[in-house]
């Protein structure tokens, strides 16, 4: 059951001119959140923007005693709502509604978990990595960005025990090129009897590529999709994703049936380009 919390901004760390991590004192939501779930956020009162914005829950924050104290969001400025979240100051109030959506199911050892993140697509993986670490599932994070400065929070995953495979488009950190290149190589060198589940979040072309690569190797791939969303509660039918039904496609609501989908169920060619 989703809860609405008018949360204090506990901290707002600006990582770059367009990326920030905002910490929100919403422990009631963070306590019941599962890996990969999302919240609907309204950063300010007022009618422009009118609607909430969907965000993956990034970190579940803890106080010094280890008790859950809130949650953070990894934000990228792309419009008015995200710019408000970027500009928010400590002590500002932000309305948070959640947790919402179907979570990731973390695989258990001896299976391995491979997370594939592009840019701000890293957001849903911190909670997943925590859950994987609890299960002692061996995990790898394939993480791609434009340049070294865009690979935020890689150390967080390292601390949780993930093997890091980094790529940048300009070659300033890790391998130069796309994140799918080392992913394909890793798959080729993996023993056929070794079970691996992939989790991907990032730009649609990247997720589709991971879906293809995983599908060709007969490996299970889950993606966390980020369509335009109106309400997050199943009321508006705006966030639909085309999923396979017989030989055709059927629109399902991402807020209720997603945002996590098994990649082979998604009809990628019918996803809008703007995803």
């Amino acid at each position: 059951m989703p809860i609405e919390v008018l949360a204090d901004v506990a901290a707002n760390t600006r990582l770059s001119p367009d990326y920030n991590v905002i910490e929100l004192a919403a422990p009631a939501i963070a306590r019941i959140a599962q890996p990969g779930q999302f919240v609907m956020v309204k950063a300010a009162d007022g009618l422009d923007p009118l609607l909430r914005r969907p965000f993956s829950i990034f970190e579940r924050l803890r106080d010094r005693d280890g008790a859950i104290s809130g949650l953070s969001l990894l934000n990228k400025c792309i419009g008015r709502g995200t710019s408000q979240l970027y500009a928010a100051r400590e002590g500002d109030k932000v309305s948070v509604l959640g947790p919402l959506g179907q979570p990731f199911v973390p695989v258990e050892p001896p299976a391995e978990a491979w997370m594939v993140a592009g840019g701000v697509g890293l957001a849903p993986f911190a909670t997943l990595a925590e859950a994987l670490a609890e299960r002692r599932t061996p995990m790898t994070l394939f993480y791609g960005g434009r340049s070294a400065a865009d690979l935020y929070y890689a150390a967080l995953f390292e601390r949780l025990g993930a093997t890091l495979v980094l790529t940048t488009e300009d070659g300033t950190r890790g391998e130069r090129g796309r994140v799918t290149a080392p992913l394909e190589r890793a798959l080729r060198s993996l023993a056929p009897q070794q079970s691996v589940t992939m989790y991907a979040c990032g730009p649609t072309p990247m997720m589709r590529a991971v879906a293809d690569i995983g599908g060709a190797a007969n490996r299970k791939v889950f993606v966390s999709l980020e369509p335009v969303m109106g309400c997050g509660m199943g009321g508006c039918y705006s966030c639909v994703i085309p999923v396979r039904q017989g030989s055709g496609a059927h629109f399902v609501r991402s807020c209720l049936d997603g945002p996590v989908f098994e990649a082979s169920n998604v009809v990628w060619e019918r996803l809008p380009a703007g995803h």
Partner: protein
Amino acid sequence: MDLSIPIGSLVLKNPVIAASGCFGYGVEYADSVNLASLGGVAVKGLFLAEREGHAPPRIVETPSGMLNAIGLQGIGVHRFVAEKLPELRRLGATVFVNICGSTIAEYCEIARILSDAEGVGAIELNISCPNIKEGGIEFGCSLTGTHDVVSAVRKVTTLPVIPKLTPNVTSVAPFARAAEDAGADAVSLINTFLAMAIDVETRRPKLTNVVGGLSGPGIRPIAVRMVWDCYRAVKIPIIGMGGIATPEDALEFIIAGASAVQVGTANFVDPFIWSKILDGLSSYMERHGVSRMTDLVGSLDIPQRTHA
């Protein structure tokens, strides 16, 4: 204090109804909202058959509003009756079933099926969806079309029949009158305004459907005026809607002549809005010494104009 409102043979426990297209089939909100506490729940528009709706993007925001072109994605009346209605009944909801048709025969067929089902409170006739050609708008934009579809459905059901009117006409009041003449128990208004938004960088429409329906606080003053126009034109109750987000917004519609109101877009922002609006209505009545909600309906006080 008496918040109840009669609509045809139905008595709503209060005047606040969840608007069709903004509340799924109601069951989606059962964890968060006591559906029985609402005056009614208007479920998403249903055709006879299932429909996929338009390809996304289906919504775009505008200042103080939003455009939608969902395209009436829906599970069809048969699945609704089998899968959703029993749950809505169990939850104690007063169910307004919004129905769509591409022909009068389709409206009548759906109305018959709903009349045989247990747990339907009223039928809202969608003759005003701006987003699809076959969504009844051809009935809603013609006075004879409105009359014909309402009188045809009237003949096949004893449930309250409530046509939902479009604002995309020169004057709405004649359509309310046509509905009344045809035997409607009430009218609901307004549906969304046909509208458009363009991405100037790409010169492409922001919606796949090119055009969509504008809703939200920005349209409220126009909706209030249209309710007032209709209130002076018909005797049957009016269910008013268009941008309601606060108790004061709801009161504006009621004072203009709406017996009940529907809340749509505001529910997207605040799914817990219902108790806030209901509490606000009660405290207003207390503050103004009004014991019955019906006494507020159409209580607009226009001061005499004085000439200097």
